[in-house]
């Protein structure tokens, strides 16, 4: 019981830290003032670990000058399209940014520049098989989201691409698996047979 009390106290401390970074930003309050394009064509399938994505972004000059005076950093992320969010509550889109789970994979973090910036990123090997688009969030000096731009339209229907993940399987693993399984069955059968023989031998005595 001492262990569970200790864990209980630890969890109270942990959660108090979590509560301290509470902030109420919403997605709908953000300005869509960043123009963003990504290299994959609509419907293209990229292989994780091999394919590259080039993302280019810049400030949309149609917005009044000075809008970007508070912009400090940019985070470019890989985001799930609606079809990959279906029946998967852990990828749900929520307006409250702290609870939003749409964009779970970071591509790059850069300082904000009003001129065009770009990055070429190799799709990492822990990206799951799904349909994606790219979004950039802009943060101010207090690390709060203030603006964004994305490679798809508002309904998240156009210009989506797919990633095909690695399986995670390896031949060496498969072989090791089979070897240990065979060992287990053979040693069981061996014991059983030996004991039966010992039993029969002592019966005959």
């Amino acid at each position: 019981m001492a262990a569970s009390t200790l864990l209980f106290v630890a969890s109270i401390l942990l959660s108090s830290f979590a509560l301290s970074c509470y902030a109420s930003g919403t997605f709908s309050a953000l300005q869509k003032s960043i123009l963003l394009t990504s290299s994959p064509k609509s419907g293209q399938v990229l292989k994780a670990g091999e394919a590259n994505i080039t993302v280019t972004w810049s400030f949309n000059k149609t917005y009044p000058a000075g809008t970007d005076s508070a912009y400090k950093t940019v985070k470019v992320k890989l985001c799930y399209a609606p079809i990959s969010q279906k029946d998967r509550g852990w990828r749900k889109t929520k307006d409250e940014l702290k609870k939003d789970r749409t964009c779970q994979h970071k591509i790059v973090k850069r300082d904000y520049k009003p001129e065009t910036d770009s990055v070429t990123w190799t799709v990492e090997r822990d990206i799951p098989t799904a349909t994606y688009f790219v979004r950039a969030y802009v943060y101010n000096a207090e690390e709060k989201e203030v603006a964004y731009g994305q490679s798809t339209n508002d309904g998240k229907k156009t210009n989506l691409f797919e990633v095909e993940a690695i399986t995670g399987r390896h031949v060496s693993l498969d072989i090791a698996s089979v070897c240990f399984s065979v060992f287990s069955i053979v040693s069981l059968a061996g014991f059983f047979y030996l004991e039966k023989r010992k039993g029969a031998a002592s019966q005959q005595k």
Partner: protein
Amino acid sequence: MGDIEGSPGSSMHGVTGREPVLAFSVASPIVLTDPTAKFDLPVDSEHKAKVFKLFSFANPHMRTFHLSWISFFTCFVSTFAAAPLVPIIRDNLNLTKGDVGNAGVASVSGSIFSRLVMGAVCDLLGPRYGCAFVIMLTAPTVFCMSFVADASGYIAVRFMIGFSLATFVTCQYWMSTMFNGKIIGTVNGTAAGWGNMGGGATQLIMPLLYDLIQRFGATPFTAWRIAFFIPGWLHVIMGILVLTLGQDLPDGNLGALQKKGDVSKDKFSKVFWYAVTNYRTWIFVLLYGYSMGVELSTDNVIAEYFFDRFDLKLQTAGIIAATFGMANLLARPFGGYASDVAAQRFGMRGRLWTLWILQTLGGVFCILLGRSNSLPIAVTMMIIFSVGAQAACGATFGIIPFISRRSLGIISGMTGAGGNFGSGLTQLLFFTSSQISTAMGLTYMGIMIVACTMPVTLVHFPQWGSMFLPPSRDVVKGSEEHYYVSEWTEDEKQQGMHQGSVKFAENSRSERGRRVASAPTPPYATPNHA
């Protein structure tokens, strides 16, 4: 003071003040020690130990205890090994919530069948072979996780690994052959509780292994597969230890004793019949579905629940989830112990009330867990819920050995299967659909626990009574011998097959509680195996 054993005032228990009062030993003269037996621990007329020495490895009683609970622990580790890694696995295999839920159902469904079969196997072949076979034949299924590529493969492998939970039956059965009825609640509760801890330990172990393997350079989608090798190796190691170090009964192995003519072979159809026609069996099947069943369901969903709802890291969610299962270290033995203590004062009625109180309490706190919105409150509710549910499991197996002597194996098996059936049903109803959030699922589960615990009020023993009714006043029908010997036909009694039940009835007089034995204690009978 009377001279007749068992007559009022003759008990010397507690007179010197040095006799142990706790239910870790049986000091009462009502259960006589067999002076002819040569074991490390004092034993009764069936050579079952009367003392539970936790840190001893003495052969056969305590060694059996340790082999038994560690094997069962290993199977729990492997059955629930996937649960804390689901956030990684669901991405690797592209699973939907339905797939994750179905895999959870599958993981507990396989053992419904295997536990039923294991009950019969124990009655006929002995618990040692039962345990070894299950644990070594399911090792390949654990290694199979490295092959899984999609949802259907994942569900199939979790189903097959789930078969290993049949070791629960071998564990409880083995304890019942080795330990006297007065302490069986505590012993069974401790063995099963420590085994169940595996469901908690795995939530700690697997994320740690996963992390370690990642540091060695493996990518996430490979690292979780490698992590599964460790439970697989544990299966093989424990199987070998059980075969080399274990024995079925205090006097030897079942096969050898049956050949010597010491233990009579029984017919499966008879054993099955007496299990199935006893209505108490079915009530406990349902009850266990809502103590053990909810524990299994929670093992499957709780890590993912904390990960998603409170935005925790995988390891943190794993630690919290682990405290749920690890509470078994003390909670389940406590339930068995509480049952034994209640029985000392109130007999079987005390055991039934203890069970009802603990299980209902668990249900109430499950409801509260689902409704908790902050992390510290959720953790607190979860811990109290775990203690209630797990202690109820321990209390259940304080009663099961008394339902039948002849069909103990099958009844243990059926009850264990009921636990898994309850878990599968609950996960299917409340944790598979996208329409019901996991939080609501937990609340509904709590309500179902409270409702399904009510039937314990219906369990009645003619010799001991029930929660609300007194025992039968009839001198014949109200005796322990009548209840246990009625499972044998006249023919079988002629052959002396019922002797074990007679001995058991004599030893079970303790379930009368403080009420003094009005029937004379039979003279000390020579055991039918020297």
